[in-house]
């Protein structure tokens, strides 16, 4: 098991290197100059030249690349070109918020999505099923910046149950939870809609299998058929989708972060892109990529727990 994990992590190294190279190239291909972003609209050519020299942007591209790869491999992601803060400090400051939001919305999504999906599948083409499908369609069609504002209007302004500004103090668990509820609910409902649909279709395809009919035919109680035979087999695609979705969520929760004024990885990535903060973008992409690798690994390990065949 441990060897398996180590092997998987080692296999991620070429992926990370490829991502590093790609990010390095892409940020430099995109038009826009970090020096102009920093110096503003009165930037003079000598000011820009001086800043390029300071930031190392006057070196040949290959030299910049070699420096960058060397530093990254030694675990030094450097400093933000704009604020001058170490990148790991910035990421360290927001990562707990991102992890909080991702896990909380995953829990909300699963707790709602899986039972509703199963329930809908068991009542296929009946009222419950239609309602579940309709609600999940609504959940998926509402962009977060609309549903988020509605939720804020109701819970933060009308009922005044929660604050609008969601920047929690990490050392205060109550504050942290207080500011997590609304964004986690917003994002969690989208996720629930998604999981409902996947669970429903996975259940439906399993329920049509021969072994289900066999089980029923030999007199296994329906409840037991659903829980032991159907759900366990339907869980595989659900886990896959959830795993993929977490990866997307880590970076794509930017809209939720902006609407609820939460710090987070997605928000930093967008900010760095607007400022053409090359070093920050590079560092963030490496960290993001690493997180994806870890999430995929956990997903794969979960397969082993659900399906004994995978372990062999």
């Amino acid at each position, binding site marked *: 098991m441990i060897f398996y994990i180590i092997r998987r992590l080692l296999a991620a190294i070429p992926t990370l290197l490829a991502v590093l190279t790609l990010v390095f190239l892409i940020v430099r291909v*995109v*038009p*826009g*100059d970090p020096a*102009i*972003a*920093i*110096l*503003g*609209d*009165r*930037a*003079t*050519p*000598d*000011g820009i030249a*001086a800043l390029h020299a*300071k930031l190392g942007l006057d070196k040949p591209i290959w030299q910049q690349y070699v420096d960058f790869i060397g530093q990254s491999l030694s675990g030094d992601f450097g400093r933000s070109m*704009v*604020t*001058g*803060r170490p990148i790991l*400090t*910035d990421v360290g*400051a*927001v990562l707990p918020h991102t992890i909080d939001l991702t896990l*909380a919305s995953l829990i*909300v999504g699963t*707790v709602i999505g899986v039972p509703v999906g199963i329930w809908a599948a068991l009542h296929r083409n009946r009222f419950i099923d239609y309602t579940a499908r309709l609600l999940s369609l609504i959940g998926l069609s509402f962009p977060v*910046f609309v549903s988020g*504002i509605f939720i*804020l*209007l109701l819970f*933060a*302004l009308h009922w*005044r*149950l*929660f*604050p*609008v*500004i969601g*920047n929690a103090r990490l050392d205060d668990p*109550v*504050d942290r*939870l*207080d500011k*997590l*509820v609304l964004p986690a609910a917003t994002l969690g409902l989208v996720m629930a809609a998604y999981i409902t649909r996947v669970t429903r279709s996975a259940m439906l395809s399993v329920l049509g299998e021969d072994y289900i009919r066999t089980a029923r035919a030999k007199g296994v109680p329906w409840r037991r058929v659903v829980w032991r035979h159907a759900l366990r087999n339907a869980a595989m695609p659900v886990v896959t989708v959830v795993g993929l979705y977490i990866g997307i969520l880590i970076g794509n929760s930017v809209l939720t972060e*902006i*609407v*609820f*004024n939460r*710090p987070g990885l997605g*928000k*930093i990535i*967008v*900010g760095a892109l*607007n*400022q*053409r903060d090359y070093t920050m973008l590079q560092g963030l992409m490496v960290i993001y990529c690493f997180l994806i690798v870890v999430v995929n690994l956990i997903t794969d390990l979960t397969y082993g727990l659900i399906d004994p065949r995978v372990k062999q």
Partner: protein
Amino acid sequence: MLIRAALAATAIAFTLPAAAQPKTTLNVGIAAQDIGQLDPHFAVSTIDRVLAAWMFNGLVRFPPGSIDPARLEPDLAESWEASPDGKTWTFHLRHGVQFHGGFGELTADDVVFSLKKAGDAKTSAFSSELRPFQTIEAIDPYTVRVVLKENVPSVLGILTNYAQGFIVSKKAVERRGDDFKRNPIGTGPFAFASVTPNQSLELMANQAYFRGAPKINKISYRFMPSDASRDLAFQSGELDLNYGRADQAWVNRTKALPHTIVDVFEPAEEGQLHLNTTVKPLDDIRVRQAIAYAINRPELVRWRGADVSREAQSVVPRGYLGFTTDNGLVGNDVEKAKALLKQAGYADGLTIKMIQSQLPEMLTAAQVFQAQLKRAGISLDLQVVEHATYHQQIRQDLSPVVYYSAARFPVADIYLTQFFHSRSIVKTPTAVTNFSHCDVADKEIDGARVETDKAKQLTLWAEAQKKIVAQVCAVPLFETLLVFARHDNLDYGYKLDGSLSLGPLITEATHFK
């Protein structure tokens, strides 16, 4: 279950901080992802500039709430005198001014160091403003002498509490090096305390401030890029002061909220269409004139809103020293525009490319004047790009028409030099923001800068505006004012008519009623 538990937890958490205490913490919401540079000599974005003015002083200052260069008053300098030829200036510093964080008393060395730093392109974004300074030296610990290479319209203007004029602690810069931009030391009413990336920046009152300890104890400066949720946080009372939008609907809606005051103040940014006079078809003055006739300024103001905008009247914004309305600017006349195009050989109309930022407030404005030009048969082919790309490409001279909106120090010289002097033409070694390649008023602009006779200086600036308008190097569009909203219990301690830092000054007198 989790939500229910959380709800219970928050119900408790929420009742605690609500206890009524005399309010001394100011919560400010600003539309940005994060702070940029805390070194005041690199503070170029609105978010950085608003903040710098709370932490730093200049030798002289605009009275809080004013941007009138005629009313400059002592700040760190108590008094000053100029030699008869206006080239040698001696400043006498206030005694006993303390830097934040125990960095000691301000002396002439700090002033000399700060101005030299601000004049060096390696350590400042405003180095060009200090080019006319020949020497800056300390005569004794409380006296600074500045000698100019040539006369400038306003020496005091360069040394105000604005951009290059901010005075930093020499010891702090030398000791902290590159770290100074993350941990700055000034003399202002508020001192930097901490920053949480992506969230907020905290300032503490400088109890030793030379004008007296501030009444506000703490400022929490919150980075909130979403307009909608920043407005909600203002409504819920989590913010006391909110960065506003120069948008009439927003102003109307916000004014209608209980206990809310919307402040609209100077300086206005003037938006202009810069026309590259060296490329086809804009090298034909008749085409440029046709564009000038096709623009309908009253309509643009109706669109933007009467409270927050006004018609531009010259190639220099209103109220700047040297601004004149007597410059021959033409009004809207679509028939005349069509006739001019016909004469120029474009009877069937023409298409002109324009690189345009995707920033919503810029893009929507562009769509409005695009529609106005269309009425005269001119198709503006908008090539919409991301904002940083726009800034780079217009400086590479890639857009024959450039829509640019800017405010500068309120003296005509700076605006005219940066946008219309041949020295500032883009893609040259001395480039600034002359996108039109205009060079018709170099003589007047240079002459006015060193002219010591104030009346002659004004005549030269008026002449320059006439020539630029006659050549149609740029078409003035509209001016947009600054907007902030506050709750009515917040009293600035002065009347806010203008602020060169682009946000309200928070001074020692600012308090909650």
